Structure formats: C-alpha cells, structure tokens
C-alpha cells in the first residue's frame, strides 16, 4: 500500500484535468492505496466551491471530492492565497473581509502552501493534474 497525494491546478468545467484527477483518485482508493490529501492550487481552488450548480446530467465535482473525504478520510486542502484572490472563502475569511456570503465549507479546508510541501514530503507519491 502506498500513500498518495494529488495536486490539482485545473478549474472545474473548463478543463478535463479536474475530472482526470477525480478519476485517478477513485483508481487510487479502489487499487488498495491511501489517498491522504488533495491540494487545490491555481485555478484548481474553484473545485471547492459550494455554489457550483452544474446541470443535473453532469457530474458535480465538489460533491465528488467530498465523497472521497467521507469514504476515505482524504484531506481536501485549498490554498488560501490562491483562493482568496479568486473568490473562495469560508465563514472565517468572509467575516475577516466583511463579506456576508461564503462558498468554502467543510470538509474543504483553506490552508497554506506549507501543507502542499508537507503532502509532498510525507506521502509516497504526489501526482499533479493541471489544465
């Protein structure tokens, strides 16, 4: 059994890479390995949006990521610097910025780039999916 982490740079519904990442995540856990964490960076932070509302006959990517956390304990880490710029905030950050709405909810966590470095050093494999 190996420990994997994923790094996702691609926005959902713009590039296949977000879907490829979720497909590969399924392959990891089905293959008997552990997916410790997914780190969302660059435009990948939009995968964490609680507001995404795709048509009903298309996959809901944020739900797909959440299911990984629920079923396998995978950490869903969103780069806070990349996210704030792009409009991804949890309630804490919304309060800090005086905003009444938020769009990042547990199990997605806003976190620093240090967690990406940790994920790389503390797992056997880091696989990147970019647009």
């Amino acid at each position, binding site marked *: 059994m190996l420990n994997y982490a994923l790094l996702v740079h691609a926005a959902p519904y713009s590039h296949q890479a977000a879907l*490829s990442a979720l497909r590969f995540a399924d392959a990891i856990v089905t293959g008997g390995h552990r997916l410790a964490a997914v780190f969302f960076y660059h435009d990948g932070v939009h995968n964490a949006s609680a507001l995404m509302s795709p048509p009903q006959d298309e996959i809901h990517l944020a739900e797909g990521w959440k299911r990984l956390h629920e079923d396998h304990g995978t950490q869903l880490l969103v780069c806070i610097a990349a996210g704030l710029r792009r409009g991804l905030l949890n309630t804490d950050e919304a309060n800090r910025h005086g905003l009444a709405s938020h769009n990042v909810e547990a199990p997605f966590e806003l976190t620093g780039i240090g967690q990406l470095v940790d994920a790389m050093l503390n797992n056997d494999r880091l*696989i990147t999916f970019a647009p």
Partner: protein
Amino acid sequence: MQLHLLNRSPQSTAVYRDLGEAFGADDQLLLIEDACYAALPAASGVIEAFGGRVSVLEEDLVSRGLAGRVSPAITVVDMKGFLALTETHERCVSWF
C-alpha cells in the same frame, strides 16, 4: 526512473521539446487527455524522441474516437495501468 504525464496535443510543440530535454534513459511517458492525439501515426515525429517508452490512456483515446488509430509503437493502458505506472515509478512529473 520517472513517469512523465502529459496532457497537451502534439501541436503544443514547446512542451514536447521541454519534456524531451528532461526525459531520462529509463523514464516512461504516459499520454492523457488531449495528448492522446500524439498517439496517432501523424505525430510520430514528435513521439520518436521518447524511444518507445510511451503509453496512452485508453479511456481518453476511446472518448476521442482514436481507439483504432494508435501507432503500433505505443502501449495502450487502462486506468489500472495508469495506477500501476505510478506504483512502479517513484516520481511522477506532470507537463502541461
């Protein structure tokens, strides 16, 4: 020994050139997403730099209508095969 992932069409020649420069003698290349088009015979000029150590992801081939068109020098792998490549290679580097 590294596994290189690539997802750009062979018309994105700059990324193929940069990857070629970085490609080691025991490395493997896996073509996914729009890089599947590099598995066609017409792209053999771009692919020959990788010395026959090239595979392509089956599900991305099939969705693009390329299943019957793959160059014989290239190995077709399914999602399990993709996972297996990452198991046997300590490092996986993604080019885009």
